[in-house]
């Protein structure tokens, strides 16, 4: 595959060079007639037509991209505010495409239509206050509407209340992995600081202050389990450099900053199992497994191990450059029914048990 593509590229480049030389020769011939290097009628004509062709190209690449890759866009949301987010996104997208289609059409059509000819004179048209007022005021109105909707959604997402039954979870980032800390039975996270990391021979994975009673029932894990339908308030920490907790399916992201605690909250609406049954997701996973199967065949021929087949899981990725293994800093998220969550939680060891 790689060799094939390399050859294809080399071929394209050599064709380009060949064409260039050829056109260059033609240019040399033309020089007897016109060597001014200023565009003449012929240049205006063919470049004007290419401008029109370029408009078609922009439309085609847009249509092709949606046809070929439309299925990768914005995966189905799995959080409560995700619906709002997606609605705002699609409104913005429709608006953008509307403006894009019209302005590109005008720009390239004018470039084609008014391509120059000797002897023609352009229209002396320097100003039109009314026209300019119109195209200032229309963006003002449209943007005002977008700003209002955006701010409304933003304040709904960010100004969450710390209600009693919300689950409090700490996301803890370090080069290059994630840990999660649950607040335990009291639903209050114990104090923590990097100074405590070396206590208990490195068993204190996220630096909980053993002197704080709230911390003793805390549970530290390497896999994030969330009960469906219950609000989760995340408290983010980092022990070394900036990281960013990015959970694309939940439309959630927040930086983890050493020295401070950042927050984000959402309510998961779809369990991992349900998401795996989602028809779009089934199609996507099939597609991915087909790709992995084909690649495995290649690997086996080369005497390497085949790739494992893929099963969907929610993702937590690091999305702030953090060093060499930034590209592989991830944690599995499992959204499940409350009872499954409780059963899982019951099996975990609390901080007090770990340090004993």
């Amino acid at each position, binding site marked *: 595959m790689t060799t094939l*593509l390399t050859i294809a590229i080399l071929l394209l480049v050599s064709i380009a060079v060949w064409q260039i030389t050829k056109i260059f020769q033609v240019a040399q011939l033309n020089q007897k007639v016109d060597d001014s290097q200023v565009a003449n009628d012929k240049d205006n004509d063919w470049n004007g037509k290419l401008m029109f062709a370029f408009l078609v190209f*922009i439309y085609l690449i847009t249509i092709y991209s949606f046809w070929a*890759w439309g299925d990768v866009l914005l995966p189905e949301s799995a959080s409560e505010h995700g619906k709002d987010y997606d609605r705002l996104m699609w409104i913005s997208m429709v608006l953008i495409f509307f403006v894009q289609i019209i302005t590109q059409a005008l720009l390239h059509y004018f470039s084609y239509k008014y391509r120059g000819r000797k002897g023609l004179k352009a229209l002396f048209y320097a100003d039109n206050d009314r026209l300019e007022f119109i195209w200032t005021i229309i963006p003002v109105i449209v943007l005002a509407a977008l700003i209002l909707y955006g701010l409304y959604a*933003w304040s709904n997402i960010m100004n969450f209340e710390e209600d009693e039954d919300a689950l409090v979870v700490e996301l803890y980032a370090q080069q290059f992995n994630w840990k999660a800390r649950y607040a335990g039975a009291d639903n209050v996270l114990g104090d923590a600081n990097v100074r405590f990391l070396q206590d208990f021979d490195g068993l204190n994975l996220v630096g909980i202050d053993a002197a704080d009673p709230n911390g003793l029932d805390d549970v530290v894990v390497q896999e994030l389990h969330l009960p469906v339908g219950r609000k989760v308030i995340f408290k983010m920490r980092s022990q070394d*450099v900036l990281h960013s907790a990015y959970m694309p399916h939940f439309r959630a*992201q927040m930086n983890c900053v*050493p020295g401070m605690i950042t927050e984000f909250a959402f309510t998961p609406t779809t369990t991992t199992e349900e998401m795996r049954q989602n028809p779009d997701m089934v199609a996507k996973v099939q597609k991915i497994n087909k790709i992995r199967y084909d690649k495995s065949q290649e690997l086996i021929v080369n005497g390497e191990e085949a790739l494992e087949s893929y099963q969907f899981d929610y993702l937590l990725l690091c999305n702030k450059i953090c060093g060499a293994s930034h590209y*592989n800093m991830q944690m599995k998220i499992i959204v499940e029914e409350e009872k499954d969550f409780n059963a899982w939680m019951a099996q975990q060891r609390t901080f007090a048990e770990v340090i004993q």
Partner: protein
Amino acid sequence: MGADVHHHKETFVTKYIFSQDHKMISKQYLITGLIMGIVGIGMSLLFRLQLAWPEQPFGIFESTLGKWAPDGVMDPNVYLALVTIHGTIMVFFVLTAGLSGTFSNLLIPLQIGARDMASGFLNMISYWLFFLSSVIMLASLFVEAGPAAAGWTIYPPLSALPQAQPGSGLGMTLWLVSMAIFIASSLLGSLNYIVTVINLRTKGMSMTRLPLTIWAFFVTAIIGVVSFPVLLSAALLLIMDRSFGTSFFLSDIFIQGEVLHYQGGSPVLFEHLFWFLGHPEVYIVLLPALGITSEVLATNARKPIFGYRAMVASILAIAFLSTIVWGHHMFISGMNPFLGSVFTFTTLLIAIPSAVKAFNYITTLWKGNLQLNPAMLFSIGLVSTFITGGLTGIILGDSTLDINVHDTYFVVAHFHLVMGISALYGLFAGVYHWFPKMFGRMLNKQLGYIHFWITAVCAYGVFFPMHFIGMAGLPRRYYSNTAFPYFDDLADINVVITIFALIAGAAQIVFLYNFIHSMFYGKRAEMNPWKSNTLEWTAPVEHFHGNWAGDIPEVHRWAYDYSKPGHKEDFVPQHIPLNKGEEELHH
């Protein structure tokens, strides 16, 4: 450059090396910028290969990266170093110094009718500081542990702690030193531009008769003076944290099994300082390109630029707004969400002057007599990418929508189109248009057409698909996407992008060949090859210090009297007095 009519005796050194002539300094900026551009674009091709065919051995890696590509496979640290230096070089060295430095220097004195910059000496120092910073930046590539690799935004603690990554050692020190010198260079240059525009305009050249190029350069210089010092302070504080144990940006850090002493600092403070320059920087890059476009579009459309006053007003509005929108880079940095609301508001406001500019450009073309020279094609291309890239800003500037696309390839697509490609097109338009002024010779137009069309197709080919992988949730600055099977279906798109990138890279060789060949063997230029109105075309083709042999021409009209009724020719240069009874527009 032919006969020397200057009355001082000039040696080789004072003429070509330590020159105080703005035209020579502009050429020095351009050529240094182009060399940096070759390095910057070359790096992007290397990491594009890695992204399309991750962890595959390439001979080119072995030959270019040496020990950093064991067995020809790129090391993750080197990948990060490449994206970091690519970003730094392209934003600062090519699109700030290479674009603004070249054309502000060339055009400010020539278009306002001045014999040189206000201070030729400071101008010379400005260039040589830029040269020095370029040398240091390039030298940092050869450091034992590798160059800076914390992203071009160099957020601490990653950039502050040598334990965090190899690139944060000597490589980062050199990066900071290089940038500090670069900022000094930029400030000297900007002050000079401002003073020159204010004080040295020729008789009759009122501010409202200034060509839009000069308005753009003038306002750009003001933004630079306002915001670059803040980056300098950020860099100095970071140097203190790194070398003298202060805690401006660092607190509560445990790394490599050790608790560090830093207490009370905040990385978020650095982000504020960085983006206080970082966002205006976008406009420092873009406004000169838009200024060049205004000039090239009007000249080649043989029409006045539409809405001159609105264009000036939108430049001023953009400049003002650009200094109060920096927080939109930090919606999810952990700053107060209320600030996010404020920055969403100011950010979306900036779409209004931008839209006005785009509409005015399109109307300038309407009913024109378009001379589709290569410079004109690049200017039209700029308007196209400026619209495509600018529109997605509506999504990224909205704090809500930013949550899920922040730091993904969607952002990469957005800013490459709206500032990278657009500004690069502005640079190319400028070079094609003013090459005759700079070198007294014409660039070959056929090669120019080839260069434009391949570049234009590839620019969309590279950056349009990136919107899709970004919307799919693929983060930027990932060495490889193989760690997430979830992204396996995006691998093909990455291959497509890389193929377009390689072809685009090859097209730039056509430009370089044309540039170098035409410099020596191009057709000799006439005095005013594009039949333009601005003053630089009244100066003789042969360069000499002082620009005009006799008196400086006087200005009697604005720069955009193209196809004006009542005149035989379709252009009326600025120094031609008004006819009897002729009315001047706009004053």
